[in-house]
């Protein structure tokens, strides 16, 4: 081969740099660019009917840790409506019913009408105050 070793080394360096820069960019892209955007779930109106075997002075419903509905059920029934996101996986609602500490075993039926108009029912049983998580899908 002809030419000075210094020149050949320089040309080799240029060649490696030309290949290396795009390779580096390919393998070290900013991570955020890779993350798929999460599908936003729209807020939707949900209707709820409560039927209790014993009156309660306070009922509350939480979704994702936030209270979305509170009320009383002095006549063993209550109705409500709240707006929450309803993903295809369904929702968990934490329902607290303020039955007295000394109350005998009582039950509550929670009927939900989801955004598509489908009715779902879940039950809670408790002797004393109730605090349960119910899943609706």
């Amino acid at each position, binding site marked *: 081969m002809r030419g000075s070793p210094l020149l050949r080394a320089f040309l080799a360096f240029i060649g490696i740099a030309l290949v290396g820069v795009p390779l580096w960019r390919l393998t070290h892209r900013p*991570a955020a660019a890779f993350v798929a955007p999460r599908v936003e779930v729209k807020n939707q109106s949900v209707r709820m009917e409560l039927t209790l075997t014993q009156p309660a002075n306070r009922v509350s419903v939480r979704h994702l840790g936030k209270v979305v509905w509170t009320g009383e059920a002095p006549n063993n029934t209550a109705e409500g409506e709240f707006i929450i996101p309803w993903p295809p996986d369904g929702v968990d609602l934490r329902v607290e019913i303020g039955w007295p500490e000394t109350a005998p075993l009582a039950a509550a039926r929670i009927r939900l009408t989801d955004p598509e108009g489908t009715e779902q029912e879940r039950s809670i049983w408790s002797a004393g105050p109730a605090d349960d998580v119910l*899943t609706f899908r």
Partner: protein
Amino acid sequence: MLHLKFGALLPEPMKPMLSSLIVSFALVSLARADEPVRVSSFSTILTEIAEQVGGSRVNVTAHIKPGTDPHEFQPKPADLKTVGESQVVLLSAKHMEGYVGKLKEATGGKSTVVEVGDKFPSLKMKAGDHDHGHGHDHGHGEVVDDPHWWHSVANVKRATKVVRDELTKASPADKATFAKNADAYTAKLDALQKWVNNKVAELPRNQRKLVTSHDAFQYFARENGFTVYAVEGVSTADQPSSKKVAELIATIKKQGVKAIFAETFQNPKVLAEITRETGAKLGGELLSDGLGEGDTGTFEGMTKHNVSTIVDALK
């Protein structure tokens, strides 16, 4: 009467000696009956259960201490000696202790070896093609029982009943004490279950995607509506293939997973690579293989730490 006849045969000076001997035997027997039940435990969770249920009526030797990796543990001669002197030996089971044969040999059939996890249903998982470090090999793709049953509070309640019953068999006189203590501990577990339910309910169901470095959270996931994507297989000794890591990276991107989790006994290098490639954050360390130290040194503390870490990072 036999003893009268026997007594009549003895020379007069021997009679007080015989009486003393009989009284001594009776006293030794009474003292033995009053001794706490000697228990050997090979799981930090079972150690807690035995201590809670047994109270002062058990003497529990914890062979696996908090912070020890049970997948890698092998009993030493001192462990086998203690096991040989125990009345009840508690094992996690579901193939966690590959050295169970050694323990049974050490007991010489005198003590009861209780394979607690085998008393309730298992979830299944595929083993990797390697030695798990617990004394035997599993073939590639072989379906094995998932040994991490303690990530379900319901399973820990089941284990409490098993331990109560085995302690009662070892010391029937303490039946009422064991039953009372087991009820009290179960009530604590019920309160913990409620806490877990309420905490998990703070996380939308469509965000319950758990990526960990060791496939140990199936029982938790099943009870709480999570999908698990594990970097490795069943054991801490597993090394993920580059193909599996690439698949996970693709899954995390597709699912939009917000955070991934390391575990105490893991090398987090692979997780660091995944976080770099996906943009997901490192959500914190989970205790997968037993109790930790300090605040996580109890089952309640460990469970609250794990559930809080998962929920808060994925929110």
